[in-house]
């Protein structure tokens, strides 16, 4: 399941976040909606029936948002417009494909931007295939220090996928500006 999410869902998370942002959902709301959407995925017994994981994930987030808006007293007009227009975002498009592809290089750059020891440990663990114990022995440090550095590495990747938002949102806006004036 995690591998499937890695391949098919995470690359589209930024686009879903960008869409949620256009509905005037707050950053905190977006974080929660995304987390809830992943929880729905985690509850699935099987993903075999899902042919378009990106559309499926988008759909979960949208339905959660709609449910939340129903409870809200004041619904921003942007939210209604976006919810109605959202199906256009779900059509496969070259822009969306490209948006989900560039990220491995960006992730490598992200590893390079980590502090020295952390970068070295994350590289050894993920790119060179050392275990945490082997890394600890090779560097002469405790395993708990290695684990802690790995923890900060995981945090950095979590943030990277979340903040992919800024870049994708800019690209999306540029694309829509030409194609679909609002």
């Amino acid at each position, binding site marked *: 399941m995690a591998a499937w999410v890695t391949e098919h869902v995470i690359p589209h998370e930024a686009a879903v976040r960008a869409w949620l942002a256009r509905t005037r959902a707050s950053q905190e709301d977006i974080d929660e909606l995304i987390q809830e959407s992943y929880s729905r995925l985690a509850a699935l017994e099987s993903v075999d029936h899902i042919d378009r994981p990106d559309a499926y994930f988008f759909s979960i987030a949208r339905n959660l948002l709609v449910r939340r808006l129903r409870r809200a007293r004041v619904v921003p007009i942007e939210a209604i417009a976006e919810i109605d227009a959202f199906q256009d975002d779900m059509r496969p498009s070259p822009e969306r494909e490209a948006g989900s592809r560039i990220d491995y290089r960006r992730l490598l750059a992200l590893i390079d931007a980590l502090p020295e020891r952390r970068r070295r440990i994350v590289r050894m663990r993920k790119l060179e295939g050392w275990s945490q114990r082997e890394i600890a022995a090779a560097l002469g440090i405790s395993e708990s220090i290695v684990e802690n550095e790995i923890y900060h*590495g995981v945090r950095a990747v979590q943030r990277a996928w979340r903040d992919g938002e800024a870049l994708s949102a800019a690209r999306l806006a540029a694309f829509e500006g030409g194609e679909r004036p609002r």
Partner: protein
Amino acid sequence: MTGRRASDIDADAARYVARMDGDDWSDAQERELERWLARDPRHAGALLRAQAAWMTLDRPFPAQSAVREDTGVRAGWSRRRVLAGGGAAVAAAVGGGVLLFGGTSYATAVGEIRRVPLADGSIAAINTASAIDVSLDDAARNVRIERGEAWFQVARDKRRPFVVAAGRARIRAVGTAFSVRRRAGGADVLVTEGVVEVWADGAEGHRVRLKAGSRGFVADDAAIEQAPAAPSAIDRALAWRNGKVDLAGDRLDSAVAEFNRYNRRQLVVADPAVAAERFDGVFRTDDPEGFAQAVEVSLGVPVDLSDPAQIRIGRPGL
């Protein structure tokens, strides 16, 4: 939402992922993780996301878009299923029979989709539970839809008009592509390429031209309605040609009616309150179970799969 912030939960999830990434993972740690997961339903989602995010560093990203079907269906692991499932039904149907002279009848069973090359170079894709008669001669190309739906890619031939009859509805094309679905009370026409002319038999004076990207309905009383449709809407309405049901904001009850065209195991919306819920996604026509499960998860509606003859969505009276 109550309790802890999403970002705090993400931090906890990262802690577990780092620990699981290590060499020793004890039973006690497993139990602690289980307790943490049980404490809040959001935890499972945060853990899944953290694991998946961490795994993105494992290897260059699979070229998701390197293999694409011409339908736009994303490949990857799903490619296997597309080929094994809906794709196979379509592929197996190719080569159904080439027509020469006189009338030939084609019929499809529930769930079957046939793609039939016609002798004039045109192609017919025949949807589930449908029957058509085709008759080609030197002066005319006539197709009659007895029941159901078919899409035609018409080979250009000015000398021989291509006319489809569905009930009273008549659709004439020269070189173009369109679908006709016979319904109670009339016929639906969707134009994917070029222009067609539609009219009702006995009311030849009133003809309407439909361009690519528009849809029309020819009623049995000879009234003709037409409406422009977004290209994506036409593509979605014709997703059956690839063994798919493509939903984008469709009502649950109409999505269910669509699946029920293709399957003996019928979907039943038991709770009228959820019938108007909107739904999105691309599903195989032969997988109502998968659709029902998606509804269960994304709308939070209970689904009962215990009866082999039907699938009940929602509990009445709740």
